[in-house]
């Protein structure tokens, strides 16, 4: 390079925007020419301003923006996930476990309430079972009225015994005869 001539626009742009990772050698002219140094500095300053502006415009965004962006993105992602239901179940279970660990007293009282509820329901269930049994017994007795009573029935036995005793009683027998006559 001619050490006496000013840098071309290409050379100035190359100084600020090198096309390689390695820093380019500083031209001899640039070390001594204030005008060329000024042109390089002005371009570099403008570039840094632009870089700072675009970077700052994003970096200055509030945390709420990033939270909203992440939430919106995850909403779309979750909507597209095929195994969402299974994962959601795991998530709900995990969050409930965390809740139990955080509030043990509340968890125990909830458990007691649940047990009481189960016990109450069981009792109610057995009562309704008894009602069903009773209803069945009534139905059976209605059926029995239409059919001859079995001889083994205890109440019928008692009735027969009392009738026999009454028949054996002569006075009562004579009364009956007299009434009949």
């Amino acid at each position, binding site marked *: 390079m001619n050490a006496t001539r000013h840098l071309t*626009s*290409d050379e*100035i*742009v*190359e100084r600020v*925007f090198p*096309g*390689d*990772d390695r820093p380019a050698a500083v031209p001899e002219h640039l070390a001594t020419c204030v005008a060329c140094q000024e*042109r390089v500095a*002005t*371009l570099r*300053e*403008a*570039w*840094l*301003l*632009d*870089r*700072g*502006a*675009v*970077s*700052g*415009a*994003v*970096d*200055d965004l509030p945390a709420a923006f*990033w939270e909203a*962006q*992440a939430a*919106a*993105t*995850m909403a*779309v*992602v*979750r909507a*597209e*996930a095929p*195994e*969402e239901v*299974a*994962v959601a179940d795991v*998530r709900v279970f995990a969050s409930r476990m965390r809740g139990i660990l955080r509030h043990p007293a509340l968890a125990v009282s909830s458990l007691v309430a649940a047990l009481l509820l189960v016990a109450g329901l069981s009792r109610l269930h057995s009562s309704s079972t008894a009602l069903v049994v009773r209803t069945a017994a009534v139905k059976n007795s209605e059926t029995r009225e239409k059919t001859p009573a079995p001889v083994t029935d205890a109440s019928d036995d008692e009735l027969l015994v009392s009738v026999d005793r009454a028949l054996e009683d002569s006075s009562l027998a004579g009364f009956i005869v007299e009434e009949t006559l």
Partner: protein
Amino acid sequence: MTEDARAAKLSREAEILSRVVAGDVDAFEYFVTTYQKRITRFVYTLLRDSTDADGVAQDVFVKAFRALPEFKGQSAFETWLTRIAINAVRDHVRRRKPVVFFSELRDDLNDDGPELPAAFDPADGTSPERDLLSRDIRRRIAEALVALSPRQRAIFVMKHYEEKSIAEIGAATGLDEGTIKSHLFRAARKLRERLEDLR
């Protein structure tokens, strides 16, 4: 980042990835929260539109999730994500500006592009003439960038805005070193054309 820290991060991400692939969708949130700022910044630098950048950045993560079964772990997840971002920006630009692309973007850039954060305000400590010149050059740089092809623009931004090495750009784009340098050279030449009258 040290080599050990980098290896630990890669190992952790591989473990999280296997969980996501196994069906733990919520685990994917790690990648969203870890890389959303970096991807949004990258996309915004390429598109120069905050609304578009937000939408495209979200799209990048959704596309990554869909393509996760195809990710073989041959590169870092971040590199793979960058490649998806480049393709997403390219698709977005093609959809958005099918015909009159550059003329519309020129109008968009007449207001000096994105607002400068206070820390980068050139009016602080420099002369008004220099401020004006800086703003003018900055506008021209932005114009030159949007005039590049999406791939060229992505390579230029990765090199000069994200300070990635040629090898890192190669990993993200799938291009060899010579092709990347060629793109960088062409991009710089277009930039120079925009700045020609500053000679």
